[in-house]
């Protein structure tokens, strides 16, 4: 049967891990010593773990900044590109460049741009007479800086998606609006936006799922600091599991976090269904 490889793979890499994960949450294990049954200890520890709860909060802050920013910028640029623009291919290519490159490259690059003394951004700011900004050293804005960088990296993809969506809007609507003397802005808000609702919501869901897996950027850029303001949930789970080898506890964190992700996505999907 052709599907048999899938079944084997599924059992090995999905069914078994999920079950084992649940079992692990009730144990304490550091790989080198035997597993120790600990009942609900891991769960109790989770709810007392201020840093973990903070990491979830940090991830949510990231999403709340990153997603709207991304949508606005992507929509803006897509709308312009959708007009009769020459060299559209070149612009599109430029916007898409950060998307294909590894997140590692982008992070290393932006770490330099964000440097307090020698970073390009602060030099530009002081060049025009403004103060230096603690992009990565100010606990209040460090996560926003990461969100900004993530937007820069991904916006190209969403510009493309929006372009596709924009092109599905039937031109008759615009022509009709032109006859009534509508301005560009009016056409955009009254025709375009409602018509591309599905695309917008797809972008939201894709960004959300992507945003929840935020890991390599804070790992390289700040290691989670300053003052734990950039520890993402995945970074914290990684640290618990693969730095301290608290396997049982990390499994518990993972399970809990997966639950949160599913909840958020379900809520978002319900939101779409209601609106449509």
């Amino acid at each position: 049967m052709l599907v048999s490889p899938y079944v084997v793979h599924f059992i090995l890499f999905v069914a078994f891990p999920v079950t084992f994960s649940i079992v692990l949450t009730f144990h304490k294990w550091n790989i080198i010593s035997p597993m120790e049954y600990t009942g609900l200890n891991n769960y109790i520890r989770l709810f007392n773990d201020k840093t973990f709860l903070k990491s979830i909060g940090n991830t949510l802050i990231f999403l709340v900044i990153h997603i709207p920013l991304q949508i606005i910028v992507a929509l803006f640029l897509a709308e312009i590109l959708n007009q009769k623009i020459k060299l559209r291919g070149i612009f599109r290519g430029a916007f898409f460049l950060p998307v294909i490159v590894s997140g590692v490259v982008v992070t290393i690059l932006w770490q330099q741009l964000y440097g307090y003394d020698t970073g390009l951004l602060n030099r530009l700011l002081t060049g025009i007479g403004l103060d230096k900004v603690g992009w990565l050293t100010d606990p209040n804005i460090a996560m926003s800086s990461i969100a900004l960088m993530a937007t820069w990296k991904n916006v190209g993809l969403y510009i493309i998606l929006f372009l596709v969506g924009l092109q599905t809007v039937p031109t008759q609507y615009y022509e009709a609006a032109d006859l009534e003397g509508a301005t560009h802005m009016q056409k955009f808000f009254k025709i375009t936006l409602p018509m591309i609702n599905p695309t917008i919501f797809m972008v939201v869901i894709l960004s959300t799922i992507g945003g929840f897996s935020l890991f390599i950027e804070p790992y390289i850029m700040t290691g989670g600091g300053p003052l734990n303001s950039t520890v993402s949930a995945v970074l914290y789970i990684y640290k618990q599991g693969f730095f301290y080898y608290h396997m049982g506890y990390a499994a518990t964190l993972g399970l809990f976090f997966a639950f949160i992700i599913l909840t958020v996505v379900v809520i978002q999907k319900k939101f779409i269904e209601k609106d449509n």
Partner: protein
Amino acid sequence: MKKFKSTLFYVALTVSALIFVYPFYWMIIGSIAPENEIGNLTLMPKSLTLSSYSQMLDKIPIGGAFINSLIVASSITIGVLIFGSMIGYALSKLVFKGRDLIFYIIIFTMTLPFQITLIPQYIIMVKFGWIDTYLALIVPYLINALSIIMFRQYFKSIPDSLIDAARIDGCNELQIIFRILWPNSMPAIITIGIITFMASWNEVLWPLIVIRDESLMTMPQLVTLFAVGGRAESQLGVKLASAVMLALPIVVAYLFFQKYFIQSMASTGIKE
């Protein structure tokens, strides 16, 4: 009025394009500038040097990492194409008991966040003795739900008559897939191939977990550890050089296949 609006658009686009491209330019010239100039760099360094690159080559086996990434990403891509098309074909054209159940299971696994399976998957790798081997990097990724769905979708649009004709000619199922379906599904294959290759090339969390041996590390993993660990000794030029090396392969591929890249990514969105 129209002219004004038009120029406004071009200005906005150009400024934006610069914002997206200039940092890369800066990264490149930063990697070929002498160390003490990087802090003051904007347009062109006063002198050029390749010392950052030679130092980097001394410190880390970046060539080996490139080969590792190539092997891993290629294997995964080939595997995903083969298995994805096999299972997508079965789900779209064949009738058997449990077909719908498997389809729903596949959809379900797509919604499962990886955070749940991360730890147990690592433990499986430990128990199988696959830590620090290519197997750990490749096998878990060989079967990909998204590719199955996409193949299934695409195959549905291929007329049954084509397949029936092949069967009459005596082809078995595998032959049908590779001799009939594949040649007729180039767009899907290219799309899925590019997405899979890109995703596996850039994957870094999993290698960080299962590979500790430097000679087996993938390129993004090696560069990450280089940037985060003390080996770069806080020298910016070397870090930038390693980032440039990491970006190079994909950017080169992108320059040649730009059209396909963009089309692939766009169609993932559409399929959602």
